[in-house]
């Protein structure tokens, strides 16, 4: 459950940019990574002596501080959002496939940097003893916050202009839209949300490793967004729930279920295979995702497209 709230934050973060701009980004996990390390830099560690020992490259001020978790989360949001804004302002000069490929190189570049910047990130070794603040209540609260921010952005003038540029870039310019600006804003905002997701991950596992923020989580979160339907915010949330349910179920089957005396168990690794099958089925029967671009409606309250 707590893990799911983290995924909701991450996938909603992806949605803010990918859903509204129509540009696939492979690089957003970089901002999750930056958020996780920012949390460590500000809020680690329970034993003050650890930071000077493991991260001698950190500025002295940071080595000597260990602020409470909320400050760490705020730092994660600020640093991830800030770097996303700067990087986005450069990448968003590109469009379409070129932009997607550039985001992939962002992921690879950030990964290589953090892997080798040993004095500041600990390099390939994992940083343990990160303060654990997450529980299902805090996770849910943060997830609701992320959904709310995404919804407000969706409803704002910037969201509207961004979707116009997604549907018809040429015509949006003729309507007066500054395509670069609206894309950069969304890139920065989604980076900020990803950063919070990273801090949540760090504060849930109590351990931070560079390898946890690379291809696996990139493709898992993208799969969730695409299965749910990148065309709507509801799709992002539904995708997380659906794929989490499927993987959880497959994991139980992998462990095995008892039927009388017999133990029925799927072969190991079936979890990944099953996930692939689910994705293929969704792509065949609902190419625009489970929600098909629509929003959930509850009575008269309707998330307007």
């Amino acid at each position: 459950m707590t893990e799911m709230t983290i995924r909701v934050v991450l996938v909603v973060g992806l949605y803010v940019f990918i859903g509204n701009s129509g540009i696939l980004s492979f690089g957003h996990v970089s901002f999750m990574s930056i958020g996780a390390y920012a949390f460590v830099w500000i809020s680690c560690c329970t034993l003050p002596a650890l930071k000077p020992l493991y991260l001698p490259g950190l500025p002295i001020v940071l080595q000597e501080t260990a602020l409470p978790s909320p400050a760490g989360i705020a730092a994660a949001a600020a640093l991830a959002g800030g770097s996303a804004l700067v990087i986005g302002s450069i990448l968003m000069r590109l469009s379409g496939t070129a932009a997607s490929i550039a985001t992939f190189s962002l992921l690879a570049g950030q990964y290589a940097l953090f892997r080798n910047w040993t004095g500041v990130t600990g390099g390939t070794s994992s940083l343990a003893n990160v303060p654990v603040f997450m529980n299902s209540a805090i996770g849910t609260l943060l997830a609701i916050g992320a959904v709310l921010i995404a919804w407000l952005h969706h409803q704002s003038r910037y969201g509207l202009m961004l979707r116009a540029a997604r549907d018809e870039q040429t015509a949006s310019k003729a309507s007066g839209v500054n395509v670069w600006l609206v894309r950069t804003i969304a890139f920065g905002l989604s980076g900020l949300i990803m950063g919070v997701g990273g801090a949540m991950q760090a504060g849930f596992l109590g351990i931070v490793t560079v390898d946890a923020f690379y291809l696996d989580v990139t493709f898992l979160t993208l799969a969730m967004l695409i299965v749910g339907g990148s065309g709507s915010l509801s799709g992002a949330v539904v995708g997380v729930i659906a794929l989490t349910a499927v993987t959880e179920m497959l994991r139980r089957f992998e462990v095995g279920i008892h039927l009388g005396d017999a133990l029925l168990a799927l072969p190991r690794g079936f979890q990944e295979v099953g996930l692939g099958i689910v994705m293929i089925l969704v792509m065949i029967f609902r190419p625009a995702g489970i929600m098909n671009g629509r929003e959930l409606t509850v009575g008269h309250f309707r998330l307007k497209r």
Partner: protein
Amino acid sequence: MNAAVPPSLAAEAVSVTFDGLRAISGVSLTLEKGEILGLIGPNGAGKTTLVNCLSGFQLPTEGRVRLGGQDTVRWDAAAFRKAGVARTFQGGRLFRDMSVLDNVEVTGVALGLSRRAAQRKASELLDWMGIAQFAHQLAGTLPYTDERRVGIARALLMKPDFLLLDEPAAGMSDHECEQLTALIRIIRLEQGCGILLIEHNMAVVLGLCDRVHVLDGGRTLAQGRAAEVRNDRAVIDAYLGAEG
């Protein structure tokens, strides 16, 4: 914007070259507020390229575009729109996955209105054009001719000084052409903008335009009052003759 001196949109000796291929060469044209200027010529004559120059989508290789005396060298398409030059596209180019109302509203927010204010203006405009019944329909689901009208509405929001229409009547029946003609006439009458009309349908052109500018092979072949151009020998040979 300045009421005393009505601005004009002018191409001055504009040439555009694509990889050595001359699309238009040395074309000059002035569009005044309140007039309807027809831009005709055979396919490939450079009509759309000229409109692209006049709306910031194409930088002239030589020559320049002036708006009310201002040079527009560093302007992009959004800057032209903000300065009051709006255009439509061949084939609509609507924002397909957005409602008709949102399609029109985008122009309003892009030009600085709040969403609420832009939405109100967009609703009023759709009402005025008689297409309010489509407001909440997805633009991608509209029939062809209604798509054109939404395209015009999108360009018309925020009362631009100049409206550039790229083949608005293509593929329309005679009856629909008449409706379109009436609509364009009302737009000029009530909004007072200068309209540049690219059109192949001569009934529409002669019915609407005060002046006509004829392009052929990227050069100006003739220009003048509609009735004069119609009887111009060179124009008949190059263009009208082909249609009988």
